[in-house]
């Protein structure tokens, strides 16, 4: 199938601003799914609220556009009732880690099979550029005109600590790596977390004088390095990208099936 057969063309051009990184994530995700040869009917995309969450309106899979921060809770219900489906949950950094932070760590802890994609633009894009838990110390936002004093956290480290069995990071500059990582994440039998550094030129970029969308992508190129590279040893400030964890851990839905089977024994 061609990439364009996986989208709802009637809703294009999409609503995202010129140069918004979320469109590049959509682009790579469609290519990953196309390369995996998956049919539209075996995928469910569940999203919350945010610019990033609008992605579910554009793909021609089964889609659910739910509540801010609650996508993983809805997705858990879908997966538990129909575990044969592939569940993909795209989220903004605010959606996943501010209001939805609790759902995030517990979905990771349970190791329920789904792919959580965090489109990290370090800001609340949809509501006008308020700072998010990922904006980071010393950045500017609509609600932090005198510099942000909140520290951010490392999504990959937090996902690993919470028990996610697949954890990876990439950026909108690294489009081939993005499609490759998404393929691995979708195939993984467990909770997969893929953090994608994405640009919001309209708010985060403008407030922090980062230039155009292309300039912001140049920064993703400059400020990141493959996991375990020599460059990282020399410059610890570089952000690592690649697959951090990919391990076999008992998956929640299959454990639940076993539990039912055990409980029914002798009845």
């Amino acid at each position: 199938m061609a990439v364009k057969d996986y989208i709802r063309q009637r809703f294009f051009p999409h609503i995202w601003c010129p140069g918004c990184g979320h469109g590049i994530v959509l682009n790579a995700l469609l290519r990953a799914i196309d390369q995996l040869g998956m049919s539209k009917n075996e995928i469910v995309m569940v999203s919350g609220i945010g610019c990033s969450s609008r992605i579910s309106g554009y793909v021609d899979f089964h889609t659910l556009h739910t509540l801010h921060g609650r996508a993983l809770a809805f997705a858990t219900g879908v997966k538990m009732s129909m575990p044969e489906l592939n569940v993909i949950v795209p989220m903004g950094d605010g959606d996943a880690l501010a209001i939805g932070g609790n759902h995030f760590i517990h979905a990771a802890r349970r190791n329920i099979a789904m792919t959580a994609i965090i489109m990290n633009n370090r800001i609340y894009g949809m509501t006008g550029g308020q700072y998010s838990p990922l904006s980071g110390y010393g950045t500017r936002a609509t609600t932090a005109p005198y510099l942000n004093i909140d520290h951010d956290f490392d999504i990959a480290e937090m996902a690993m600590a919470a028990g996610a069995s697949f954890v990876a990071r990439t950026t909108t500059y690294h489009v081939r790596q993005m499609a490759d990582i998404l393929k691995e994440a979708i195939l993984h039998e467990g909770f997969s977390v893929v953090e994608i550094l994405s640009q919001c030129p309209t708010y985060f970029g403008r407030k922090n004088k980062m230039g155009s969308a292309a300039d912001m992508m140049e920064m993703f190129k400059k400020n990141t390095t493959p996991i375990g590279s020599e460059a990282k040893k020399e410059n610890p400030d570089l952000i690592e990208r690649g697959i951090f964890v990919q391990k076999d851990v008992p998956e929640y839905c299959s454990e639940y099936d076993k539990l039912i089977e055990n409980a029914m024994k002798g009845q």
Partner: protein
Amino acid sequence: MGKVKLKEHIINREWCKGCGICVHFCPKNVLELDETDKGVAVRPEDCICCKLCELRCPDLAIEVLTETETSALVKSEEAAEV
């Protein structure tokens, strides 16, 4: 399979928002924004068919057609006509 050769760039002017990402990152300087801020291939003869413009376009507005394939979009439109 022989060497992949460019057939044409299909740029959807309705979907392109003129962000300039394709222009900025093309390794061969093939693309430019025209006076209405839409991406155009001004030096197609220099294109090496790396498809990075197609992969990085946030608006799914570029398709790089090569000799070995035809556009699925064009195909389905043609199919709709007959």
